[in-house]
């Protein structure tokens, strides 16, 4: 009995978390500053499948905040991000969609996801996905990023919940010519979104003491 117990040592906590998360699928709508950084954080934790969507290509100007590299300039963001995720963890399944999402795409691509991450740039697109999920995908968890331009003011970044909608950001700092989005602050919000995703996915996780 003791022998069996010794050879069947439970995994360490991080391994148990990673194994548990491998059963989940997360959708990421937009692969810019929020989406690329959030996807990488979720991949590092071991979320099993990521469905990523964006229509843009990597530019030099993106590299001040987005999870891409200089030698990826000119490539589709979804392809570059898939490559970066799989360099971190080849076991993660990444479904990459090169498209500008509309209402029916959101429903079709993300209906099988446990959680959707809103990572668009434009306010209009943020509104579109929030309205779509609230009215046509009721009960689905959506984690949105709202307000992260500029620098400093770490203390006003927060998360708040309204049923299955989670909002991360400062909700006031809009991007403009003099207030760009930069790596540290968009990284804070992107990782806060990933943290909220884990909070949802790990609700029923019960670790075994190693």
């Amino acid at each position, binding site marked *: 009995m003791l022998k069996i117990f010794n050879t069947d040592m439970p995994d360490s906590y991080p391994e148990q978390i990673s194994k548990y998360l491998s059963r989940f699928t997360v959708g990421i709508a*937009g692969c*810019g*500053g*929020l*989406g690329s950084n959030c996807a990488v954080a979720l991949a590092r934790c071991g979320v099993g499948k990521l469905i990523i969507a964006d229509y843009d290509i990597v530019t030099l100007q993106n590299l001040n905040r987005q999870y891409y590299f200089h030698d990826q300039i000119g490539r589709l963001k979804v392809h570059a991000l898939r490559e970066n995720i799989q360099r971190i963890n080849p076991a993660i399944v990444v479904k990459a969609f090169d498209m500008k999402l509309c209402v029916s795409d959101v429903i079709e691509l993300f209906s099988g996801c446990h959680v959707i991450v809103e*990572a*668009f*740039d*434009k*306010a*209009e697109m*943020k*509104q579109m996905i*929030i*309205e779509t999920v*609230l*009215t046509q995908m009721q009960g689905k968890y959506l984690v949105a*990023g*709202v*307000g*992260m*331009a500029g620098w400093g003011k770490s203390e006003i970044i927060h998360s*708040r919940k*309204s*049923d299955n*909608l989670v*909002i991360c950001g400062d*909700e*006031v*700092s*809009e*991007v403009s010519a003099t207030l760009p*989005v930069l790596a540290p602050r*968009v990284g804070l919000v992107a990782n806060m979104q990933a943290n909220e995703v884990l909070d949802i996915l790990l609700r029923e996780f019960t670790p075994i003491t190693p």
Partner: protein
Amino acid sequence: MKINLNNREEVFESEEMSINQLLAAKNFTFRMLVVKVNGVLVKRHQFDQQMVKDGDDVMVLHLITGG
């Protein structure tokens, strides 16, 4: 009436008010908004008809560009 607005208790003198009246009272002049009353999305064209009453839970989210 007493309502829960963005997870905070707020008291207004009127017994009920429309979404547009509520937004005006709070000086919310945002262009892109998502409004929920008791968990249900209210579209912009309903902002005059949809009334907010005592005890309601209201979420107003101002959507801004950046990401």
